């Protein structure tokens, strides 16, 4: 397991993002998949800083990276305000109506779309968002 810990400031998020992209590239993932993994973790960490810690510095956001034979798992942890799933608006708009285009609220949709599993739980005062990406199994040789 690799554990990344940053202080809750938006300028620190790219440090986690770069580390995630590096891990994905080390696992020989293509550039789009590496970008998408980085994107999901960045969305999760940014949500923690914005919504769990209300943009206040001085708190920790932890990202655990766990590699299993069949999957790559990220656990993003904070001790701030718990996310209220009821407040997460469904993503949708009418492409022909400019006024309906969303400027925010896309992060959860992105994570749910790109990751194979997304779980959220609170244990002992710690909010844990778990993102799981299944790894492609190598094809058997003939």
């Amino acid at each position, binding site marked *: 397991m690799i554990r990344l810990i940053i202080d809750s400031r*938006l*300028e620190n*998020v*790219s440090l986690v*993002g770069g580390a995630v992209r590096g891990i994905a590239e080390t696992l020989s993932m293509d*550039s*789009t998949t*590496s*970008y*998408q993994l*980085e*994107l999901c973790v*960045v*969305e999760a960490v*940014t949500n923690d*800083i*914005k919504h769990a810690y209300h943009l206040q510095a001085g708190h920790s956001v932890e990202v655990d990276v766990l590699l299993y034979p069949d999957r790559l798992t990220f656990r993003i942890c904070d001790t701030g305000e718990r996310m209220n799933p009821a407040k997460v608006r469904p*993503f949708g*708009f009418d*492409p022909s109506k*400019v*006024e309906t*285009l*969303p*400027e*925010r609220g*896309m*992060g959860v*949709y*992105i994570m749910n*779309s*790109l990751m194979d599993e997304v779980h959220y739980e609170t244990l002992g005062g710690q909010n844990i968002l778990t993102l799981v990406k299944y790894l492609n199994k190598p094809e058997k040789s003939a």
Partner: protein
Amino acid sequence: MQLKHKKTNDVLIVRPLEKRIDASTAAEFKKKMGEWIDAGNRQIVLNLSEVDFIDSSGLGAIISGFKKIGNDGNLVICTVKESVMSLFRLTRMNRVFDIYASETEALDALSVKA
């Protein structure tokens, strides 16, 4: 955030020199784009050739500029890296923005629209 910009005829070409448009830079990007639009720029090409990471905050800032121009002009995008393009497709913003392979193609398209 470093944003290179130049005016060609009536078209403002904006090229972010940063590799990332994310939550830490989106507000500044949105503010700068808003200022250029308020200054009367109605034909804008956003050249993303240097950008290899955009998150939902960055995308939201681009959308904000698009909405601010509204039906009063055009904001088109060019030279989007394939990985970043996947975000436009995922969010269906590729159906909202006109996206061109090169700056020249974007300028040609705007000259037809104008």
